[in-house]
């Protein structure tokens, strides 16, 4: 039996190992619907306010079916999603939301559903430029349309009051997740990479209220102050996988910061709790840091990344690039240059969710951690 202190982590890990099972249990207890959210940036508060469970699908929840019909140039995130839906997995999901994250996900929305799959689906197109003229008005229109759709699908209108309550729930969850990240920066090694991954991933499946409780329990533990770590790593990219985090842990590296889409990008930034709630969600989105999928004139993703890197106290930067992910790949050479210029050890590690080269990744991570020791 795990000790009391280990229980939150074990529970989160179990959710990560079997997200579909967790969704199924929630549905049978609540009698409500679950909405599958394709990464990234779906305003989940709206689904929550409609009484649905937002579930982010990362494409590695099931082994890809051989008959998935996924072309080789599609990244493993989108490939896994397409393969799972086409092979009849994710029957726990009652409706789908596809944001305009990248070309591949936009196309997936158009082509992946079998003709007999009549589950409701919504393409959430968000502005790619945070400061383009008309971006707030356009996004407000999309948020309102999404709000109406969610109400229709769930059979529960998304009232202003309900949305305000959901915004508070999400803000509380983000606040607690930020505390976890702060703890990791202030006391390197206080949480392992695997713990960070498990807590971040579980929160994309569990109801936010429950996830907040788990995080609070994890933060309340009285763990011994860890000894010196071999390396303080900042992670960037779309996502880390369980094996990559295990390799980092095994090599003695402490994660002190990240801007992962399956991590900080998902949990950072609060929405205003007063005023018009749709507008509040628009503002939260447009205030995000520039990233692989959001442009902002005058501020670049690399500049912001370096600022956050410095704040975290990290001593090296690890870029986790999902193979075939064009938006994430384009910045890599300039990111490497910037790091070289500043004397920051940098490594770009390619990952494929369905063909993980664990031994090779382990060796590269060990060598990376040893750099400059």
């Amino acid at each position, binding site marked *: 039996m795990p000790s009391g202190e280990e229980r939150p982590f074990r529970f989160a890990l179990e959710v990560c190992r079997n997200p579909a099972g967790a969704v199924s249990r929630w549905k049978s207890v609540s009698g409500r619907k679950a909405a599958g959210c394709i990464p990234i940036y779906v305003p989940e508060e709206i689904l929550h306010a409609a009484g649905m469970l937002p579930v982010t699908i990362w494409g590695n929840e099931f082994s890809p079916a051989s008959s998935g019909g996924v072309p080789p140039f*599609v990244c493993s995130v989108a490939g896994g999603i397409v393969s799972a839906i086409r092979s009849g997995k994710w029957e726990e999901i009652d409706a789908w939301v596809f944001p*305009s994250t990248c070309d*591949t996900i936009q196309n997936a929305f158009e082509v992946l559903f079998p003709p007999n799959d009549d589950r409701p689906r919504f393409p959430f197109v968000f502005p790619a430029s945070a400061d383009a003229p008309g971006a707030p008005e*356009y996004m407000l229109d999309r948020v309102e349309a999404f709000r109406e759709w969610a109400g229709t699908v769930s059979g529960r209108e998304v009232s202003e009051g309900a949305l305000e309550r959901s915004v508070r729930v999400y803000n509380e969850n983000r606040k607690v997740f930020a505390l976890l990240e702060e703890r990791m920066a202030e006391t390197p090694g206080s949480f392992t990479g695997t713990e960070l991954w498990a807590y971040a991933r579980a929160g994309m499946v569990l109801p936010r209220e429950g996830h907040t409780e788990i995080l609070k329990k994890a933060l309340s533990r009285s763990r011994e102050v860890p000894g010196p770590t071999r390396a303080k790593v900042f992670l960037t990219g779309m996502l880390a996988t369980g094996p990559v985090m295990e390799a980092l842990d095994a090599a003695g590296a402490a994660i002190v910061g990240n801007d992962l889409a399956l991590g900080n990008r998902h949990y950072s930034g609060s929405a205003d709790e007063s005023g018009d709630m749709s507008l509040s969600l628009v503002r939260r989105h447009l205030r995000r840091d520039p990233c692989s999928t959001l*442009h902002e004139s005058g501020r670049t993703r690399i500049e912001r990344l370096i600022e956050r890197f410095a704040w975290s106290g990290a001593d090296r930067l690890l870029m986790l690039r999902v193979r075939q992910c064009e938006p994430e790949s384009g910045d890599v050479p300039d990111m490497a240059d910037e790091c070289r210029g500043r004397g920051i050890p940098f490594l770009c590690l390619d990952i494929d969710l369905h063909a993980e080269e664990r031994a090779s990744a382990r060796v590269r991570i060990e060598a990376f951690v040893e750099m400059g020791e």
Partner: protein
Amino acid sequence: MTRPKRLEAAAGMKELMLRHFQAGWLAREEGRKVAFVTSGAPVEFLHAMDVVPVYPENHGAVCGVARAGGRLCQAAEERGYSRDLCSYWKIDWGARTRPSESPIGGLPNPDFLLCANNICRTVVKWYEGLSRFYRVPLLLLDLPFRHAEEEPAAREYVRDQFRNLPGELARLTGRMWSEERFRESVDLSREASVLWQECIEANSTRPAPTTAVDQFLLMGPIVTMRGTREAVEFYRGLTHEIRERVRRGEGAVEGEKTRLLWDNLPVWHQLRPVSDFLADHGTALVGATYTNAWTERAGESPDVSEGLADAYARVWLNMGLGHRCKPYSFGQEEIAARLKSEGIPCILMDGDMADERDFAEGGWRTRLEAFVERLDNEHHRGMRG
């Protein structure tokens, strides 16, 4: 071997395109600004401000035709760009560091960048990188993806950005906005698009007066010189030549038996071999989904900018397939399955549009031979039936 009949206009186009590339190099001496532009951007705004537009994507295609793409992509990969990235993007990077490998000696330095993401979202990251490299401003036009019905809010969002563009261009060029020149450019653009559409649609006659390969090669001016008198004059001449062929009942492929449609970007480095092989078997490539993208034009609207916004908004529908062009290619298997289910023969071939390293010539030839043989058999059965 029977080859498709060449169009006389092709020779004129080479000269025209050379002049276009030279204009970029000469711009500074003439006191004009140079802007790098994506292929779906509303270039009419630039013409209004006497800015010389330069198209890195078009340069990628030119390098592809000259089979220089592989070496230039290799240069980009040595810099750290991954092999699975868009080859146009990599060629652009490669030519910046090894201009001598480009058939036109690379591209001139830009004064600013105009990027519209109606063709794909990859261009946003590409142009952000260009902005860092050249240390020049980037104007991004965010033209949202259209899934089904047009959303009025999306149209308004595009209009808002278009309304903002003249002021931005005035700031960047130090010139006064010229509505008159803008209107003139939009009119010229519309006229060239109408002529280009006629060239494409002429292939609905049998035998087809041109091939899709002709179209791929002759689309250069409509992509890069839209909004200019030169483009209108060129397509006027081309239309005349095609009309004459139609009048004489002259096909581009002798003894045309089978007619094929090409869906996706051209595989630039294999245009002639594929076209010649097909022509030798009496098969004509009569159309391509790609070339249609430049038939969109501004509506007749009192507000020119508004009419133009609608035209560029409609272009999104058409863009969407090459091996390295993910948005255009993801969905082709589904299209093929649909066509097969309706009894229309089709074949999926894999190859990069501009990087000749990602192309297996033997595999292509064997598959094409088998496909053409099948079409031949069906043609004969049809004749007997």
